[in-house]
């Protein structure tokens, strides 16, 4: 049996991105609480908040309004967002921008008069995206990381990944988690009075995916396994223009939307500007979902590039112009051995964000006592599709909120003992790949999963494809449970990490595919070619998912239309 370390804390935060660090900062504002932050990578460096390029949506300008941001977000989300959560988002985002600046020292780009500059972003009726050049995430996460490291009451455990949630035997309350110390290959049990999931989702089970490489939907799967209610798992957003770099890890790096806005053309292998077939009015300036679908259909119709993408060409603007307008993007393509400024580059839609996740209420409670969720792990804020700029707003606003709520609620909460059998079971499951002398190869299975999800549960879906995918996923799940990895070097064992990622991704993929099969209409990011229309009569609702006796149970739940009902257009604010 492996040595297991134990720790006890008031608040355990899983994840060190925008949601996790803000939760820790807010929780530790209350003196006397011991806060532990466990991060799969390095604090503030892993995760996608770090990678935010575009920026942060917040209403700051007097001519803009909270109601407008609210409506834009609902329209983007095709009206299945939880309206109370959206209301919190739009109301608190402006305060959070001020907090980031005034308390942690972030500095966003300014207008000539010294006020904060806001730029346009897709799907918004007002220019409200706050940014720092095209590296907004670095500005935010560097300051938050530094601020958090200065807090003495917070213990940060870097390269510690959560592998299982713990419940007490009596009440079934979540009372901590089992962590794998990646650096040493050992386990740490953290007993906590409140536990926050802030692991940032991350649909990396597709051939093309944009998120940081360590993310594998861990938080959502941990919650599902512990019995929490999930919803909207079919809602996976694809970014239309990720760089295709065959054989390289740079594959899937995002090329920003501004390129299309500035006049870039999308071309297929025949040299046609194919957007003319899909959205003749807006052409390349169409919305994310339509452009993604168009690219995907061209590629699957055999009109793709050799690397399996389409061409994005902006070189007609002239080399100097492109270099001046998009220095970061030019640098990125050059790093990959291409050159955006002088010729076409290959792009392809890539999985970018999951709108679905753990169901939360207005205080970030999940359906299990003691367990909270915020950021990309949580569902409801973004509905069926996320607007650019609402992701980092969500993770910071709800991370801070969760921190405040947990700090408030742990006072007086009893300290519960984790069930030792559950501890044992989590460690047993996690160490499986190390105990086998023979077994499946993790990389082969990861490749298969990614191709399968891309082909059958991707941008365009249909019933037979989804059914076939579910059958294949069942097989992949069995094989993933038989993976064998090297054990000669237990410290920083990357292969073992991949095996655990695979396990999580396969479990999440089943939830995505099953929910996608269940929703027999098209809405937001979810497109069924056998049900191409949005059907408000039957589907103005969320698809919930919960682990039940006989396996996964899916149900319809009416969307929370507490403030505005799109069907009657009535407004009750």
């Amino acid at each position, binding site marked *: 049996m492996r040595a297991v370390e134990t720790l006890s804390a008031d608040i355990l935060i899983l994840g060190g991105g925008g949601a996790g660090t803000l939760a820790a900062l807010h929780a530790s504002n209350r003196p006397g609480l011991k806060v532990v932050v466990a991060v799969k*990578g*390095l604090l503030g*460096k*892993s*995760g996608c908040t*770090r*990678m935010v390029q575009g920026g942060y949506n917040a209403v700051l300008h007097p001519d803009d309004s909270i109601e407008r941001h609210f409506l834009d977000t609902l329209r983007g989300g095709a009206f299945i967002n939880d309206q109370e959560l959206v209301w919190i988002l739009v109301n608190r985002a402006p305060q959070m*921008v*001020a*907090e980031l*600046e*005034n*308390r*942690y*020292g972030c*500095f*966003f*780009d*300014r*207008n*000539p*008069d*010294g*006020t*904060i500059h806001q730029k346009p972003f897709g799907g918004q009726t007002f220019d409200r995206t706050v940014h720092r*050049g095209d*590296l907004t*995430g*670095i500005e935010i996460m*560097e*300051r938050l990381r*530094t*601020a958090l*490291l*200065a807090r003495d009451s917070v213990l940060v455990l870097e390269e510690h990944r959560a592998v299982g949630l713990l419940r007490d035997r009596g009440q079934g309350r979540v009372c901590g988690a089992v962590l794998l110390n990646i*650096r040493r290959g050992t386990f740490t049990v953290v007993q906590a009075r409140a536990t926050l999931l802030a692991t940032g989702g991350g649909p990396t089970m597709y051939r093309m995916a944009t998120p*940081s*490489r*360590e993310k594998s939907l861990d938080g959502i799967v941990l919650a599902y396994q512990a019995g929490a209610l999930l919803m909207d798992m079919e809602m996976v957003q694809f970014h239309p223009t990720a760089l295709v*770099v*065959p*054989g*390289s*890890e*740079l594959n899937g*790096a995002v090329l920003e939307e501004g390129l299309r806005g500035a006049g870039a053309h999308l071309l297929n292998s025949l040299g046609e500007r194919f957007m003319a077939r899909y959205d003749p009015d807006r052409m390349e300036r169409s919305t994310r979902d339509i452009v993604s679908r168009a690219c995907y259909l061209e590629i699957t119709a055999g009109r793709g590039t050799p690397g399996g993408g389409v061409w994005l060409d902006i070189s007609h603007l002239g080399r100097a112009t492109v270099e001046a307008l998009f220095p970061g993007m030019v640098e*990125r393509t050059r*790093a*990959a*051995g*291409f050159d955006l400024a002088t010729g076409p580059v290959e792009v392809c839609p890539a999985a970018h964000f999951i709108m679905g996740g753990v169901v939360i209420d207005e205080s970030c409670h999940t359906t299990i006592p003691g367990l909270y969720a915020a950021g990309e792990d949580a569902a409801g804020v973004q509905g069926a599709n996320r607007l650019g700029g609402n992701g980092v707003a969500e993770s910071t606003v709800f991370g801070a909120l969760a921190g405040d709520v947990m700090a408030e609620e742990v006072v007086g909460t009893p300290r519960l003992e984790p069930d030792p059998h559950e501890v044992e079971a989590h460690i047993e499951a996690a160490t499986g790949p190390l105990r086998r002398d023979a077994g499946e190869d993790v*990389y082969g299975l990861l490749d298969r999963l990614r191709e399968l999800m891309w082909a059958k549960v991707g941008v365009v879906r249909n019933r037979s494809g989804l059914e076939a995918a579910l059958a294949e996923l069942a097989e992949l799940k069995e094989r993933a449970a038989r993976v064998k990895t*090297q054990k*000669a*070097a237990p*410290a*920083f*064992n*990357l*292969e073992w990490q991949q095996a655990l990622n695979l396990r999580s991704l396969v479990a999440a993929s089943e939830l995505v595919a099953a929910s996608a099969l269940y929703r027999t209409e098209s809405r937001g990011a979810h497109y069924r070619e056998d049900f191409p229309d949005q059907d408000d009569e039957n589907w103005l609702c969320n698809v919930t998912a919960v682990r039940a006796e006989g396996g996964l149970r899916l149900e319809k739940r009416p969307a929370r239309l507490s403030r505005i009902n799109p069907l009657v257009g009535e407004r009750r604010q």
Partner: protein
Amino acid sequence: MNGRGRTVRVARTAPDGRRYYEDFRVPLGPQTTILDALLYIHRHLDRTLAFRYACRQAMCGTCGVRVNGVERLACYTLLGAVPGRVVTVEPLRHLPVIRDLVVDFGPFFRAWAAIRPAFVPADNDGAEPARIRPDDPDRRVIDRHRECISCGLCYSACDVVGTRPGFPGPAALNHALCLVLDRRDGAGPDRLKPIDGPEGCWACHGLLACSNVCPKGLDPTGAIEDLKRLVAFGRRRNGVAV
């Protein structure tokens, strides 16, 4: 892959902690980065190889290594562009090695802590972000030094870091300048104290090793020059010491 390949020599750690080098043959494509080479080795040649990365696009600053003795981000360095017959990949210097190419950034961030790197609000929780024009002279200086991804490449390249344990290092001092010039920050002269003194900015001999390797094109050497003027002359006006 077109049959072309390169030999990559990787610094490894034996189970007893001893360090050694191992050669691997890696296929070379036009887009192969050092990170891709490491991933290739890991997948196809030796599953025990350990290295660190996250964003794979020069944003997280966790994949730093030394390539033929020069600090680079593995994810942003093309294998084909590295000169020489053999490409040697080693961990960053001045930091304990956890295994193979993975270092413990602890000392690097503890060195940051010496300059009190956290922002201290001067005006406690103003409701509005400060009005600062983009052409504000202090801000223009800060802007030149701001986009640090705390990758530690400069720390590894700096010889003074290796010889003077109290020296905060180029990245920390670069960050200190940004705070000192930020008029929203309230730590004021307190912040200059640890920076002054023989172990502070005066230990830097200004030979640009840090600025040469910064993957973000920052110039910590220049920032340290500015800091020296600030601590020497105390006052500053319009972003430069007077």
